[in-house]
């Protein structure tokens, strides 16, 4: 054998599970023997503290109740906590896209603005912009919590590839619809 065996192999010797060639080396090598003996002594010492002071059975009952109380007080974890945040993010994008033509540009700022006539607006029930605003309001609290914790980029990072694809498709569809709505 060339050189000294690595520490993980020396551990095998200390635990008595090393191959005979390795054991033979450690027996003939003062440096390795000293380290293996040290580990064996450490193992013996560690075993001195196998037992721990054991709390009473009443303690475990109290412990469980304490954890239960904390859990009841905690908000229920959401398996799909990212969905409201993403829906809102998508809604926000669509809203910006929908309102984009109405926003003043440097050129248009010089000209008198003309707002669309009320009669040209779609009925309230069919107005997707109003629906999106409604969804945004409904998920405002959830978005605030998620955004504080992760931020939108963090939420997206947590998604699997399939979920990211699904999000991209949803955004594309919503944007396409919004553009189509603007043109008409």
């Amino acid at each position, binding site marked *: 054998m060339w050189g000294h065996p690595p*520490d993980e192999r020396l551990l095998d010797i200390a635990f008595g599970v090393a191959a005979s060639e390795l054991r033979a080396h450690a027996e003939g090598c003062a440096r390795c023997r000293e380290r293996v003996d040290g580990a064996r002594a450490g193992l013996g010492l*560690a075993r001195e503290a196998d037992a721990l002071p054991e709390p009473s059975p009443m303690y475990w009952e109290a412990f469980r109740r304490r954890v239960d109380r904390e859990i009841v007080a905690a908000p229920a*974890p959401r398996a799909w906590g990212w969905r409201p945040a993403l829906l809102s993010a998508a809604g926000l994008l669509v809203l910006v896209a929908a309102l984009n033509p109405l926003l003043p540009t440097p050129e248009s700022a010089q000209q008198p603005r003309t707002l669309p006539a009320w009669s040209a607006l779609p009925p309230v029930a069919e107005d997707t912009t109003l629906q999106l605003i409604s969804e945004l309001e409904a998920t405002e609290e959830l978005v605030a919590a998620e955004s504080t914790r992760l931020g939108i980029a963090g939420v997206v990072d947590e998604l699997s590839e399939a979920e990211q694809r699904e999000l991209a498709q949803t955004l594309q569809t919503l944007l396409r619809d919004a553009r189509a709505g603007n043109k008409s």
Partner: protein
Amino acid sequence: MLVEAALDPILLVASSDARVSRDALRSDDERLVLACQRGEREAFSGLVERYQRDVYRLCYRYVNNHHDASDMAQEAFLKAFKALPSFRGDSSFSTWLYRIAVNTCLNFRQSRRPAHEPLSEALPDLAPPVAQSIEDDERAASVRAAVAKLPEKQRATLILKLYHELTHEEVARILGSSVGTVKANLFHALNNLRKALAGSALEAR
């Protein structure tokens, strides 16, 4: 050799029983985890009852006192409950829970440095150890104190491998390292433990 041959079938049966029992436990864990993920909070109590002793003992080895260990164990379970929706079963629930507990311990110690662990701290609500002399208690307390002062990774490795009797592979999964690293860390931990207690009455035994 004859004795070993005679024992073989018994050992096989025992090993098979242990495997069946482990599989049953894992399957039961999965059932409880799925129930929790469906929103049945009371299912989590079953998981707490099953693992509270293991998590508490792990924490106790880290901080070497009952009150902090109790707080940390509770914190670990709360973290696990909150993170349960993201648990996908890539590892066993126990491995996942151990990882959360170890991280809780590491964060706790970082926020409490320098470690201050009076060995004489009373544990009024603890039952006295059974059939142990005062000398044995003092010896065990010295070893626990020395273990609690080992470097982080070495301490985690030693506790999980020796006191929780996990395999090198399981410890590696919990600590997010390789089996080789786990074994090397354990080797250093044992040597450092001996050095820490060198010259004490312990070593003379």
